[in-house]
């Protein structure tokens, strides 16, 4: 009799657990998983963002920050992860660099802004960083990869889903910082970020050639010397990006001039950077102009 009761109870459980989920339930499950993973990712990224700012300082000019954010959000609107709220900031550093942390915190340095020649170049750079986030380049690298045993799963189930990974948060953040500032993500992911980044920027309406032209310009300025320990040498990135662009038929031999509209607002925003005229790349230069700039990327050594 007891066994019969057990059977009935188990049958009821089975019926409940194996009922085919409705479309709404399935979507809710997806959203639930998305929400949980996003919270984790964002917290890691936020702590990394705090460390980046703590190390370099935030360049706080509301107008320049807003301009960078608007370009970034325009590109991000074309990305594959609308659930992420992107945040853009400017770091006080003469080094020409842009950085992304998981969860959507994206930074450019004042040094990078000074080296840019057009809004499209900025869009290409921000597209590259957004791509690191959408493709989870860093996050997938720093999150612990380990098999969870059945016993551990049961323990977690009994503790109502609480996870002990939270106690590794500090370690995860530090691993991310090491990748960001010391080791780099590796040539494959950087190359992918270049390709994905221009796909986003181009889809947002910017010139597909801009990032390639900017990389060529930096390569010229540094005479091919490797300037970044976290990124592959410029010639390697240029070759890979060019291959991708040619394969997709988006490489234009004749360079498209930046529109007067874009160039005008770019120049206005950059003129707000608190730098001397002599320090800044001549804002009247058009993207694709390969003649040497006045000062250009003098911070690149």
């Amino acid at each position: 009799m007891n066994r019969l009761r057990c059977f009935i109870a188990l049958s009821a459980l089975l019926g409940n657990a194996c009922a085919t989920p409705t479309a709404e339930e399935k979507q809710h499950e997806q959203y639930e998983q998305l929400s949980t993973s996003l919270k984790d990712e964002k917290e890691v990224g936020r702590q990394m963002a705090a460390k980046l700012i703590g190390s370099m300082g935030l360049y706080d000019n509301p107008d320049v920050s807003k301009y960078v954010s608007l370009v970034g959000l325009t590109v991000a609107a074309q990305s594959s992860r609308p659930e992420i709220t992107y945040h853009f900031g400017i770091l006080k550093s003469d080094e020409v660099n842009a950085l992304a942390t998981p969860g959507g915190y994206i930074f450019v340095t004042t040094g990078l802004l000074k080296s840019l020649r057009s809004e499209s170049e900025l869009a290409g750079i921000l597209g590259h960083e957004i791509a690191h986030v959408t493709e989870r380049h860093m996050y997938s690298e720093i999150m612990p990869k380990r098999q969870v045993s059945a016993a551990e799963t049961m323990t977690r189930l009994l503790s109502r889903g609480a996870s002990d990974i939270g106690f590794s948060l500090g370690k995860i953040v530090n691993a991310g910082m090491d990748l960001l500032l010391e080791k780099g993500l590796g040539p494959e992911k950087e190359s992918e970020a270049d390709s994905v980044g221009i796909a986003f920027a181009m889809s947002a309406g910017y010139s597909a050639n801009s990032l390639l032209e900017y990389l060529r310009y930096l390569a010229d300025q540094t005479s091919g010397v490797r300037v970044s320990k976290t990124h592959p040498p410029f010639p390697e990135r240029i070759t890979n990006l060019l291959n991708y662009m040619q394969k997709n038929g988006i490489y234009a031999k004749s360079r498209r001039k930046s529109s007067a509209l874009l160039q005008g607002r770019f120049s206005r925003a950059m003129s707000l950077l608190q730098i001397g005229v002599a320090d800044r790349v001549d804002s009247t230069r058009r993207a694709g102009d390969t003649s040497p700039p006045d000062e250009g990327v003098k911070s690149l050594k």
Partner: protein
Amino acid sequence: MIFREIAGLLASGFTLVLFVMSAGAAESKKNNESERVYVQSVKADLKVEPQLNASSVLSLKRGAELLVIKKEGSWFNVSAAGKTGWISKLFVNSNRPVGEAELASELSNDKNLAKAARRRSASYSVSASTRGLTGGSRVREGREKYPSDYDAVDKIDKSKISEKDVKKFQEDGKLSQ
């Protein structure tokens, strides 16, 4: 007697696990047969061939549902609104697009939570979660290699730019066409 009942229960439990696993496999197979993806970017084009520069068959907006016919590299051959074409995987995902705020409000919905609780019994997944350590958790400074400035991050978090402003920025720069 008690021992026999425990053994019976264990056997039933094992059957239950097998049943759930097979049901899950069947469900997964069913899903593969009619895989759908959704446009995540604000806009995307369905292309004649799998190439970014290929001409457009159809202009799609965020949320458009696409039926996957086949995959080729980083491209999906899909059908939508009676037309077939190619779309880069960069612009689509398997879930319906949702913004961060919308995601939070969706999950705070009581009705959905009740459903989720029911479903969770059958589909628990272990998450590498940092839940419970958000808000207020601050990495101690001093011993840290990189000092933290949370006030500045708070400032970045609070500086919101509306979708309307972004749209105006795109239109002003004639980027939307």
